[in-house]
């Protein structure tokens, strides 16, 4: 029964992706969907780290930026093959995450958050100051599109067909991971580090592994982002974006793979749909984070299900629904 439930979910996902590809006939909506996809990659990775392993990172945008700039600089300046550049970005991000992770993951709670925050700020400053390489605050232009054979992913509709299958693969990998030996060890260390250690789980190593793994997702997202916009600037990879990602994780639901998709979708569409976001973006994201933490601590999906259950319970005169 478990297998069929899973199969259904993935078939549904694939069907939805295909259906949207056929129905949407507007570049604006494809662009929006593409950003939802890229954000989902980031949020799923961050959720593995935050929601499952219980390690807070406030510098996730930095890995997104490293991926984007690796692809951007290598392809625009040095004319490296974009796919090769993507792989190079993965290697760079992986090494950076490893080097940051070794000291940072010895810290706990707020201290880990502060260390990753510091890392994010440092990367942001480097992107701005290393003008010779990055183009500085005015950004890096002329990034080519990705291509397979003769097909160039140079329109929103074509990019959609690249990004969303990638999202599907990453979601599947993540769902597999969570329900594996390593995934159980991750959740175990979140609940009780002492008990996990007592069962031969090397918690320090595991935290480092998942930190690097989540940085790799961010690197893929960064590369796709660079080749989608063909232009990147440091403002996309600052502290504010790290906070947005954390908000997406929390809104979608900690330790929820599919919630990540929802959190990314809602908080990508809302700022587009509501004009107020332009002036008060920081305030609104802060407010969303607060409200969700206080009223829906398990995220939108679980929170709404609970609310629905509670209403049904009240309506049926206080009988617990079976």
């Amino acid at each position, binding site marked *: 029964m478990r297998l069929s439930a899973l199969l259904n979910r993935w078939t549904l996902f694939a069907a939805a992706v295909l259906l949207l590809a056929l129905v949407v006939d507007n570049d604006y909506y494809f662009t929006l969907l593409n950003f939802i996809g890229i954000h989902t990659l980031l949020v799923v990775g961050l959720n593995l780290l935050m929601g499952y392993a219980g390690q807070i990172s406030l510098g996730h945008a930095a890995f997104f930026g490293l991926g984007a700039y690796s692809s951007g600089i290598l392809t625009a300046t040095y004319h490296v093959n974009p796919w090769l550049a993507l792989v190079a970005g993965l290697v760079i991000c992986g090494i950076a995450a490893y080097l940051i992770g070794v000291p940072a993951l010895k810290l706990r709670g707020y201290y880990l958050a502060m260390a990753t925050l510091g890392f994010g700020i440092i990367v942001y400053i480097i992107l701005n100051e290393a003008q010779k390489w990055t183009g500085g605050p005015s950004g890096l232009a002329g990034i080519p599109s990705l291509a397979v054979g003769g097909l160039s992913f140079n329109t929103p509709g074509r990019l959609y067909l690249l990004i969303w299958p990638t999202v599907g693969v990453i979601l599947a*990998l*993540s769902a*597999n*991971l969570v329900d*594996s*030996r*390593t*995934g*159980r*060890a991750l*959740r*175990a260390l*979140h*609940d*009780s580090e*002492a*008990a*996990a*250690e*007592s*069962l*031969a*789980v*090397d*918690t320090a190593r595991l935290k480092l*592994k*998942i930190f690097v*793994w989540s940085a790799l997702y961010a690197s893929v997202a960064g590369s796709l982002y660079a080749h989608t916009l063909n232009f990147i600037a440091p403002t996309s990879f600052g502290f504010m974006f790290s906070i947005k990602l954390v908000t997406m994780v929390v809104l979608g639901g900690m*330790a929820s793979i599919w919630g990540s998709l929802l959190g990314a979708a809602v908080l990508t569409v809302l700022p587009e749909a509501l004009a107020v976001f332009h002036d008060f973006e920081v305030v609104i994201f802060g407010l969303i984070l607060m409200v969700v933490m206080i009223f829906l601590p398990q995220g939108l999906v679980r929170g709404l299900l609970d609310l629905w259950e509670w209403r049904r319970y009240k309506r049926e005169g206080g009988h617990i629904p079976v």
Partner: protein
Amino acid sequence: MPPGAIKAVIGPNGAGKTTLFNVVTGFLTPQGGRVIFKGEELQGLPPHTIAALGVARTFQLVQLFERMTVLENAMVGRHRLSRAGLLAGALRLPGTREEEAAIRRQAWEALEFVGLADRAHQSAAVLPLGLKRMLEIARALALAPTLMLLDEPASGLDARETQRLQEMILALREQGVTILLVEHDMSLTMEVADSIAVLNYGRLIADGPPRYVQKHPEVIAAYLGTDWQA
């Protein structure tokens, strides 16, 4: 400690029993002295390395993975004896599936041993305390330990559960598991222990079979009191 025996450590609160446990399992590093297990020195090794050598423990304050199911808790116990890494798990490689099946089977066996198989798919958080202690034992047992340290396993258990615990401890010894037990329930301790060490303020004041310890004047003065008669 002789292999395959049940050794109990008793003493008044603050005597250093849990500290002894933490030193043996690597949660504390001793300032001096050595911990020898199968000819290897354990002091200074991290807890997960000591666990990997086959030393399992339970906690005085139960430490379950509360957001996981009962079965998943026991499955974490199999971590030591399985290999699949992060990538193998994410890609769900063929070898991983077989290993996963073995993990599940052995986790079920451990649950069956402690009588929790019928609650396998419940959340560990909703178990009553007695069953939480049983799950901790199942989880430790899944690690297939050579040495098992039980830190006050009977506290919070009713008479029937304590009886069941006693049978389990004896069954574990039958399987060749060496057991180090800290327990305040004296009738349980006296029944199951092959020998008892008595600690008082970090000092060993007596060490021997239950009958010897019961009559030891210093033990009676420090811990048992004069009204304990077995």
